[in-house]
C-alpha cells in the first residue's frame, strides 16, 4: 500500500520516486560554460578586494574569476584550491550571502553580487572532472603526523601536511571520511556523492593513510598517539548532541536532527526513509533548517521549526530561512519547549512563548507532532582531551592546544564560526604551523 503526506505516524514512501528525485536534486544547478562567462564578466577585479577579506580562507576571488573569464577554469581552480583544498564543497555549502557575496561591491551597487560561489564551483568542478590533482608532494621528510577526524578541518590539515612531505595517518570514527561534508549537510547541497568524490580526489596528493572506524577514546588515546607520531591534529568535531532536558525526551519519535540528516545522506533509497506526518524541529541553526527542509521534501505534511528567540537571532542565514519558508516549512519564533506529550510515542509538544531574553509569558501552545527533531546544538565529546576553553578545546595561535605537539581546529576548537570554510582555514593554518615546528 502506498502512503501519502496524509498518512498518520512515521512512515516511508510518502512521495513517488520522481517527486523525491526532483526534491533532492541540486539546489543550485551548475553553471554551464556560457553562464560562467557571463557571470565572470561582471567581476570588477577590485583592488584588495572586499570579497577576499570576507573569505575565511582568503581565496583570491578576483584572480580566479578573471582566470575563468579568460578561458582557464583549471588555473582558476588552482587559485582556489591553493587556499582551500575543499573549495568544491565550500562552493556548495558556504553561506556566501553572508561572506564573499555580501562583501561584493556589486551587492553594494546593485544588490546583485557576482555569483562567486557558483563560479567557484564551476572552476573546481572543471578541474576535478578532469580527474587530475594539481598539487605535488615535497620530498618525504620522514616525519609522521596523526590527524584525528577526517572532516573539513582534518582533511585540509592532512592535505597540507602531505604536500609538505610529511607522512599522515588520518583517523576517523565513522565508516567513511568527510565528516559533516559526508554526514551532516542537506542532500540537495551536495548531490551525486560529491563529498566522497572530493575526498578521493584530495587523497590523490599521496602520503595520507586513511583509517576509518577509529575514534578518539574507544580506539585511540592521545598519549599513545603522542608516542607514535611527531605531531597530532585534532579535528574531531562535536560528537555529542545537546539534550532538551525535558521529561518525555525518550519517547518514540523524538530524535536528533543530525541522525536524521546523516541517515538521509547515506540512504540508497529515499523511498525507504521514514518521516512523520507532523514534524517539529527545535532549533535555529543550519542543522535545524536542513532537517526541517528535508523532512518536508521527504513528504511530511506539516513541518514546523520552532526557535526560542527572535528570527534575527537565528544562526541560520536569512537565505536559509527563506529557503525553508519557500519549501513550506512554518517557522515559529520566541517559543521554548516545555513538555513532550504522548503515551510512549510522541503525540504533541508543548511550547511556552518567551521573549528574546527567554522570559516566560505564561502563554503556551501545543503543536501536534509524531516526529520531533532536536537541533539545539552539538557538544564536544570525550575526555582526556587538552584543556578546554568553555566547552571546546582551547587553542592559541594556529591551533596550538595546551598539550605540546597537539593542535586542534574545526568545530572542536574554541572560536571560529562552525562553518566548513572556517574549519578548512583552521586545518590548513594548523598544518603550516605543524610543518614549521617539524622542520625547524
Amino acid at each position, binding site marked *: 500500500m502506498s502512503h501519502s503526506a496524509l498518512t498518520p505516524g512515521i512512515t516511508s514512501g510518502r512521495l513517488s520516486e520522481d517527486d523525491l528525485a526532483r526534491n533532492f536534486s541540486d539546489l543550485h544547478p551548475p553553471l554551464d560554460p556560457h553562464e560562467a*562567462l*557571463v557571470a565572470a*564578466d*561582471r567581476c*570588477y*577585479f*577590485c*583592488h*584588495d*578586494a*572586499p570579497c577576499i577579506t570576507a573569505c575565511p580562507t582568503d581565496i583570491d576571488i578576483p584572480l580566479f574569476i578573471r582566470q575563468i573569464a579568460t578561458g582557464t577554469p583549471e588555473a582558476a581552480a588552482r587559485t582556489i584550491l591553493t587556499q582551500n583544498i575543499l573549495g568544491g564543497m565550500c562552493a556548495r555549502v558556504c553561506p556566501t550571502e553572508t561572506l564573499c557575496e555580501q562583501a561584493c*561591491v*556589486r551587492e*553594494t*551597487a546593485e544588490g546583485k553580487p557576482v555569483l562567486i560561489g557558483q563560479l567557484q564551483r564551476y572552476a573546481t568542478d572543471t578541474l576535478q572532472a578532469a580527474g587530475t590533482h594539481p598539487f605535488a608532494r615535497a620530498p618525504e621528510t620522514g616525519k609522521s603526523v596523526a590527524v584525528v577526524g577526517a572532516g573539513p578541518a582534518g582533511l585540509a590539515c592532512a592535505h597540507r601536511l602531505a604536500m609538505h612531505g610529511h607522512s599522515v595517518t588520518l583517523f576517523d570514527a565513522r565508516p567513511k571520511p568527510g565528516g559533516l561534508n559526508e554526514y551532516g549537510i542537506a542532500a540537495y547541497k551536495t548531490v551525486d556523492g560529491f563529498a566522497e568524490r572530493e575526498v578521493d580526489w584530495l587523497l590523490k596528493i599521496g602520503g595520507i593513510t586513511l583509517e576509518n572506524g577509529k575514534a578518539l577514546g574507544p580506539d585511540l588515546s592521545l598519549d599513545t598517539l603522542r608516542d607514535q607520531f611527531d605531531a597530532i591534529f585534532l579535528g574531531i568535531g562535536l560528537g555529542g548532541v545537546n539534550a532538551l532536558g525535558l521529561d518525555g525526551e525518550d519517547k518514540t519519535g523524538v530524535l536528533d536532527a543530525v541522525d536524521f540528516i546523516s541517515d538521509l545522506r547515506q540512504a540508497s533509497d529515499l523511498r525507504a526513509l521514514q518521516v512523520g506526518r507532523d514534524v517539529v524541529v527545535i532549533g535555529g541553526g543550519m542543522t535545524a533548517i536542513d532537517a526541517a527542509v528535508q523532512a518536508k521534501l521527504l513528504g511530511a505534511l506539516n513541518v514546523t521549526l520552532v526557535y526560542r528567540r527572535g528570527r534575527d537571532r537565528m544562526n541560520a542565514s536569512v537565505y536559509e530561512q527563506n529557503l525553508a519558508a519557500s519549501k513550506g516549512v512554518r517557522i515559529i519564533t520566541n517559543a521554548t519547549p516545555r513538555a513532550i506529550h504522548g503515551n510512549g510515542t510522541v503525540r504533541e509538544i508543548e511550547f511556552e512563548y518567551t521573549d528574546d531574553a527567554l522570559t516566560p509569558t505564561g502563554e503556551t501552545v501545543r503543536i501536534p507532532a509524531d516526529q520531533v527533531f532536536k537541533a539545539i546544538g552539538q557538544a564536544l565529546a570525550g575526555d582526556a582531551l587538552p584543556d578546554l576553553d568553555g566547552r571546546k578545546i582551547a587553542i592559541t595561535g594556529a591551533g596550538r592546544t595546551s598539550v605540546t605537539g597537539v593542535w586542534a581546529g574545526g568545530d572542536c576548537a574554541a572560536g571560529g564560526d562552525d562553518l566548513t570554510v572556517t574549519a578548512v582555514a583552521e586545518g590548513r593554518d594548523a598544518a603550516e604551523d605543524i610543518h614549521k615546528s617539524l622542520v625547524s
Partner: protein
Amino acid sequence: MADLTTNFIGITSPNPFWLASAPPTDKEYNVRRAFEAGWGGVVWKTLGEEGPPVVNVNGPRYGAIWGADRRLLGLNNIELITDRPLQTNLDEMTRVKKDYPDRALIASLMVPVNEDSWKSILDRVLETGCDGVELNFGCPHGMSERGMGSAVGQVPEYVGQVTEWCKKHSNLPVIVKLTPNITDVRKPAQAAKDGGADAVSLINTINSITSVNLDSFAPEPTIDGKGAHGGYCGPAVKPIALNMVAEIARTPSLAGLPISGIGGITTWRDAAEFMSLGAGNVQVCTAAMTYGFKIVQEMISGLSQFMDEKGFTSTDDLVGRAVPNLSDWQHLNLNYVTKARIDQDLCIKCGRCYAACEDTSHQAISMSPERTFEVIDEECVACNLCVNVCPVENCITMEELSPGTTDPRTGKTVQDDYANWTTHPNNPGTCAAE
C-alpha cells in the same frame, strides 16, 4: 518629434541614417527589409565592372573581438565587392528605387583606374534612377591587391583623377569614400574636393587582424590554415573615425565639403556626435549586422528626442556644432586646473581608481582601512584615469579650481586668463612679445 528630414548634397531622405555599402545592402531582399524598418537611405553594395563577377572565399569572412558578455566591439571582414552579376544588381536597384522614391539610393562603385571603365559603369547606373554614386576608394583587402579600393584611396592624385572623370561623365552627385589606412586623411579629401567631389564619406575599414588562433597559430578569420588582413569596423573604430571626420571638418581649405560620417555608429548618440563634428548624415553597417535593421528605430527616436531637448528643428542645427571647439594641443588653456572628486555616496569601494592611480599614475588617491578612497589634491594632475576606470558613472568627476584659489600640487594661484603652450616660458619656441 523633431523632423529628421535630411538634405545631403541635394539628396533628401526622411532621416540621416543610411546603411553603408556592405553586406546588408547587397540584395533587393535585404534593402527592402531595411527600408521597411525605416532606414533613410542605402548605399548599395559596391558594383564592379561588367564581366565575370568577383568571387569570395568559401570559408569565414568575418573575425571579431568582444567585450563583456560577448558584446561585439569590433568586426573585420575579408569580403569583396558584390559577387553577383552587374545587371542583376542594376535591375534590383531600379525596382527598389521605384518602390521607395522617398529614400536615398546610392550606387557604390569600384572599377579599374581608367576613364573608360568609369564612364561605362556610370552610364549603366544612371539608368537605375539612383540618387548618387559613391566611389569606393576604401576597401583595404582583396580589391586593393588588384589596384582598386584603398590602393586608389592612398594616392591622392588617383582620387582626384577618378573624381574628375566621374563628374565629367555623370550629372549624379559624387561622394568619395575615403580609406583610413593613410597617414593624413586630409590629403585624399583635398584631392576629392579639387576633383569636384560633392562630398566625402569616411571612414572605410581599417587594416586589421582580429585575433590569432592559438591552436593553429593562424590569424582569424582563417581560411584553410592561412589568414589575410581584413577591414576593421564596429564600435571599436568610432574614435578613429570621429577624429578623421574632425580633421576634415576643421581644415580651412576643406571647409564646406559635405561629409557622410561612417565608423562604429551604433546608437543615436554616436550619430549625433558624428553630425556635431560636421557629418551631414551618417552611414551604419556593423550595428545593423549585429542587431538587425530594427535598431534604426532607436536611432530615429533618440535623435528626435535629443533635438527636441536642444530646441533643434532641423538636422542642420546640429551638423558642425562641435567643429568650432576642435583645437590643437598647443592652443589648449594651461591655466584651466581641475581635480578629481569622488562622490562617497556613489562609491561602491571597488578600489579600481586607487589601483590605477597608485600603480600606473600619480599616487593621488588615498585608501583608508575602511576602504574610503579620497583624492590627494597635492598629487592629482587631473589626468582623468580614475574617472575612466571607475565602474560607476559620475562617481568620480573633474572639478574646476576657480581662479584665485591655490593649486595644492603646484602651490600656484589659479589664473583667470587663458594661456597656452605657445607663450609658455618652458617652450623654447616661444616668441617674445614685441
